C-alpha cells in the first residue's frame, strides 16, 4: 500500500469519526434538559425583548403624532372583521340563492304538472263533448222518428 493511500484512509477515518461524534454530541445536547430549559428561557427573553421594543417604537410614533404599528394592526383587524361579515352575508345570499333555486325548480315542476293536467282536462272535456254530441244526435234522431210516427 502506498503512503498516499494510508493518508487517504486516515483522513477518511478521521472525518467519519468526527461526523459520528458530532451526531452523538448533538443528540446529547438536544436530549439534555438543561439545554432545552435554556432554549425555552431564551425564547421567553426574545419574546419579551421584541414586545418591549415594539412598545417603545409605538410610544415614539405616538409622541410624533404618527400612526403606530398598533394603529395599522387595528385598522387591518377592522378590515378582517368587515370581510368576515361580508362572507357571512355572502353565505346567507348563497343559501337564499339555493332556496330560490329550489323554489324555482318546484315552481317549474308545478307548472309542468299543471300544464299536463290542463291537457288531460282538455282531452277529457273533448271526450265528454263528443259523447254529448253523440247523445244529442241520438236524441234528435229519436225525436224525428217520433214525429214521423
Amino acid at each position, binding site marked *: 500500500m502506498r503512503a498516499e493511500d494510508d493518508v487517504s484512509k486516515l483522513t477518511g*477515518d478521521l472525518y467519519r469519526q468526527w461526523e459520528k461524534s458530532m451526531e452523538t454530541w448533538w443528540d446529547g445536547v438536544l436530549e439534555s434538559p438543561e439545554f432545552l430549559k435554556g432554549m425555552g428561557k431564551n425564547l421567553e427573553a426574545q419574546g419579551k425583548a421584541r414586545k418591549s421594543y415594539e412598545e417603545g417604537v409605538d410610544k415614539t410614533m405616538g409622541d410624533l403624532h404618527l400612526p403606530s404599528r398598533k394603529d395599522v394592526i387595528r385598522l*387591518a383587524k377592522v378590515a*378582517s372583521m368587515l*370581510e368576515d361579515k361580508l*362572507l357571512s352575508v355572502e353565505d346567507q345570499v348563497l343559501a337564499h340563492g339555493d332556496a330560490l333555486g329550489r323554489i324555482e325548480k318546484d315552481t317549474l315542476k308545478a307548472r309542468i304538472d299543471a300544464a299536463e293536467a290542463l291537457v288531460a282536462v282538455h282531452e277529457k272535456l273533448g271526450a265528454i263533448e263528443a259523447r254529448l254530441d253523440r247523445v244529442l244526435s241520438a236524441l234528435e234522431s229519436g225525436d224525428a222518428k217520433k214525429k214521423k210516427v
Partner: protein
Amino acid sequence: MKGAVPDPFAFVGALVAPYEGLDEVERIRRGAFVLATAPRPPVGQTPHEIIHTHDKLVVRYYAPTGDYEGDGDALPVALIPSLINRAYVLDLEPGRSVVEALAAKGHPTYLVDWGVPGPEDAAEDVAYVLLDLLHRSIERICRHARSKQAHVFGYCQGGTLAAMYVALRPERVASLCLLAAPAKFSEGGRFRDLVLHLDVDEAIDGDGLVPVDVLKPAFRLLDPMGNWTKNKGVDAASKDHKRLASTLAREVWLDDTVPMTGAFAKEFVKMGYHEDRLTKGTWEVRGQPVLLSAIACRTLVVACDGDFISPKEAVLPMVDAIGANAKSVTLPTGHIGVVVSSAGPKLFYPLLDRWFRGIQPE
C-alpha cells in the same frame, strides 16, 4: 444547473480528491456553494383557478385532466396542508405534485392554502381555523363541485386539524386520509422535546405572531447534522439539471417557513404537546370536545418509517382513537420525501388515488 456565480474555490477539489475525508468536506463545501448561489426554480405551477378567499386563505381548484376510474362521479378532494409551511409542498414541481397527480386521475382537486398571517391575525385560534376558515372552505368546495360531500386529505399538522374538523363537523366529509399527522403528541419525538420545557404563556405572545426567525432554527434543530450532510446530496445532484432543480425546489419550500399566530401556537403547543389532549378527548373547541371516535367516515392513516418530525409512534395512535373505520399504512420513506421525493409518484400518489376511489389498501 450550476451556481450562477463561478466557484472561486473550485481548484480545491482537485487538491483534496485523493484524500477520503477531505474530499467529503470539499463535496459539502461545493454543495453549500451551489445552495447559496444557484437560482431557485419556480414552484406551484399546476394550472388552477381561485374559487374562494377568506382573509389570507385561498382555495385553489385544479380541474381534472384525466378520466376518473372509480364508480359513479368523482367527489371533490380537499387538501389541507400544515399552517406553518407553504401549501405549495403539495404542488412542488411537475411530476412531484399531489394536486397534479390527483387531477390526472380525474379527481376535482382543491388546495386549501392558508397563506401568510399578519399581525392583525394574531388572535386567530384553533377554533377560528377549524370552524370559520376550514368549515367555510369545505362548504365552498362542495358548492363549487356541486356535491354534497368531499374527500379530505390532511398533511402533517394539516392532518391533525383535518381529523379535528371531521370530529366536529362530519356532515360534509365522505372519507379522510391523514398523512404524517400527529395524534399522540407525547410520542412527538424531538419536536416535542423542544417545546416541552417552553412556558408558552411567557414565550408566546398571544397578541402577536411566532416569527419565522424562531420557527426556522427550531426546525433546523430537529436534525442538526442533516443540515451539514444534505450539502453532499446537493453536490451530487448538481451534475444533473433535473435532479438539482428538484433538490432546489425542496430547499425553496424548506426555507419558506410561515409565522404562526400567537393564539393558535399557544393552544396547539399547550393542548397538544404539553397536555396530549387529542387522543384523550379532552381538547375543547368553542366548548365542544373534539372526540376522534366521532369520525364515522372511512379513514386512512399514513405514517412514514423515517419520519422524525411526526414519528409513527405519534401518528398511528390516531387509528385506535378513531376506531373500526380507520386503517393504517406505513410507508418506507420520510416526512417530506413522502410527497416530494420519488416515493410520492411511486407509492403515495397511487395510494391516495385508490383510497379516494373507495379501494382499501393492501
